[in-house]
């Protein structure tokens, strides 16, 4: 008879013992890919409610009094950081910001050391931006504070995706069946990745458009097809814009030229700059989005950015409201109730 081995010890985990697990038990906003539709919808409703709060004389709803928020930015960012700082103030939380550009590796400090620093300070919510994809998840598995992803490498930028969806909903009421084009350096865009999850989960049909060298090699795992949405890619701008209800232009990063994804900025602009003429094939009431900051004349013509079709300013305004809703939701509050 063969000897039989029975092992009874627990299955080991790469996560240190005692670490909190991300998931239903705790609320982190790490990505929109795994955010259930019910939460997505509630966050967007909460954002609308907070938009109304921002229109009141006090412009404030102090529902998170005493909550300590740390904005930890390993990549320089003004717009997103300021938006989160405003949002924290508007819900009565205390926030501090660390800006420390450059990877922790290049500085000789490990992410684990960052984790210990945050733990020692007794932070309740960590808003993190990092040049490396996956860092918010890494932190969420190791800190007791709830983690909000403010952009991780080329992965996701979920609050941006929420504010994009909120802005379109303000005008369209529903995204179900809408045709939305996302144009630019999609392969390296966390904005595009978050937006496509939000849009498709709400039933929109998304076309990712850009030069093939800047499109995902395989888009088959992108987008929530089960929710009625779809994702396709197109290298020709005319194909993506045809009949589109909304077009989002992405910021072109000049470093892409150095890596030979593109011959030149001028070449990109010649083929993909959003102009009035190129939008002619879109729906009559087409809406234009841009996450900012814009390279006017490169990915978007000024006359489009400043036209009535452009929702770019509304996106910024919705950003604060969305982040107020997210801060409340991560602390276990219902964002709609928190705003009322």
């Amino acid at each position, binding site marked *: *008879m*063969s*000897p*039989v*081995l029975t*092992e009874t*010890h627990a*299955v*080991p*985990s*790469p996560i240190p013992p005692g670490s909190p697990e991300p998931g239903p038990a705790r609320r982190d906003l790490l990505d929109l*890919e795994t955010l259930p539709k019910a939460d997505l919808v509630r966050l967007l409703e909460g954002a609308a409610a907070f938009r109304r709060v921002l229109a009141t004389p006090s412009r404030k709803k102090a529902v998170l009094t005493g909550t300590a928020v740390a904005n930890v930015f390993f990549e320089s960012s003004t717009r997103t950081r300021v938006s989160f700082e405003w949002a924290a103030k508007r819900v009565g939380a205390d926030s501090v910001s660390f800006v420390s550009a450059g*990877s*922790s*590796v290049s500085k000789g400090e*490990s*992410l*684990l050391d960052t984790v210990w620093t945050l733990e020692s300070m007794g932070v309740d919510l960590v808003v993190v931006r*990092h040049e*490396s*994809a*996956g*860092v918010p*998840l*890494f932190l969420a598995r190791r800190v007791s504070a709830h983690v909000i992803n403010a952009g*991780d*490498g*080329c*992965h*996701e930028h979920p609050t941006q995706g929420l504010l994009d969806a909120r802005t379109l909903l303000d005008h369209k009421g529903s995204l179900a069946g809408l045709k939305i084009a996302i144009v630019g350096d999609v*392969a390296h865009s*966390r904005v595009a*990745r978050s937006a496509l999850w939000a849009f498709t989960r709400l039933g929109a049909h998304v076309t990712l458009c850009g030069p093939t060298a800047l499109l*995902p*090699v*395989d*888009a*088959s*795992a*992108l987008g929530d097809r089960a929710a009625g949405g779809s994702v396709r890619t197109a290298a020709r701008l005319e194909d993506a814009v045809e009949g589109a209800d909304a077009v989002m232009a992405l910021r072109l990063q000049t470093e892409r030229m150095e*890596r030979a994804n593109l011959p030149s900025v001028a070449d990109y602009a010649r083929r993909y700059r959003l102009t009035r003429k190129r939008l002619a094939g879109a729906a009559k009431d087409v809406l234009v989005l841009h996450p900012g900051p814009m390279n006017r004349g490169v990915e978007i013509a000024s006359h489009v950015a400043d036209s009535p079709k452009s929702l770019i300013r509304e996106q910024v305004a919705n950003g604060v409201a969305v982040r107020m809703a997210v801060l409340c939701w991560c602390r276990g509050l219902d964002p709609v109730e928190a705003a009322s």
Partner: protein
Amino acid sequence: MTTLFVNARLADPTSGSFANEDVLVDDGRVAARGTSARTHAAAARAETIDLAGAILAPGLVDVHVHLREPGQGDKETIATGTRAAAAGGFTSVACMPNTAPVLDEPARIAWVLERARKVGAARVHPVAAITLGLQGERLTDLAALVEAGAVAFTDDGRPVSRAGLMRHALAYAKDLGVPVITHAEDLDLRGDGVMNEGAVSARLGLAGMPAASETIAVQRDLELAALTGARLHVAHLSTAGSAQALRAAKARGLDVSGETAPHYLALTEDAVGSYDTNAKMNPPLRAAEDRDAIAQALVDGTIEIVATDHAPHTPFEKQGEFAAAPFGVVGLETALSVCWTHLVAAGRMDALALLRAMTTAPRALLGLPDPLVLGAEADLVAFDPEATWVVDPVRFSSKGRNTPFAGHTLSARVLGTWMAGVRTYDALEQVRT
């Protein structure tokens, strides 16, 4: 010391026999096999080991291991790495030269051999660098390195990017009668990729390494083998295209061979899941089609060797940003079980065929003798193919804990390992109680 193994199913992958057979080991060598073992004069003073129907086989040989010494003892040492080898059933390992300093001088080869003699729980066969400092610029003193004990040449961890230089290395190694092991990769095409390029990398927002960055380089080196007539061995094959290229090269009659690693046979890019740095290695885990093509190539004999590419790193190095974490996973202590589970127990590969890929074929590449021949040094492994176990990296003998198989339930458990008749690993009691 004399040992009599009884109630063993003796797997002899070289001869093809797989039957109940006793083995008597006397003074480190195989003294008798079969019915004559118990009646042999030396049997009277033997310690009897009852294997209770478990398999006894030639000690496993791994042609691709990073022992990390000299210079990187925080990752692994020759002592811990060979203990890990013994725990996985290996009696011989070939160690890669990307240490600090690089194994590009005869004295360093001699140092590794001396260190292994003192502390090794397995035989260590050093592989020397092709180019000084692995810089891909100037050839090492190949002849002197062979004289010092190097069994092959490689710049593993990085390719020799210049085709002209690689041609000369192959031609020179041919004169010396040793193989060149190529880490085939087009670095320009790989770019800053950190995982396989495909649907998963697109979803995670991680830079991809296209399969073509391996396949193109494999094809180049196979052409150089044709040009020089040299003995070329292709390390860690992971793509369907590479397997096809090797198949075609063999059909042309080239003197080439290839290896793959257990993780390419068992896992796909999905194992990266949510940025698991313990599933990050180079070449990366590929698509399901690649995994299946690599397994098929192993089954049909195109790829004749399973090697682990055992690459220990400290937990600190692996705990951090996925993009910044070093490439590499450990494999010595899970290799046999992973292959057994996914190939033999799964009914896709014959037990003897797998053992050939882990014993006979790697021995042929390194020029090592068959340990089951009468009078040969008795390098043996005993394992129970029925025993299942759960991989717990904390229990590894290796310093490395970086395995993608943590928590996996595997079949086939090593019961004991013997190097020239001396026990280097013993789990008989542990497994039976």
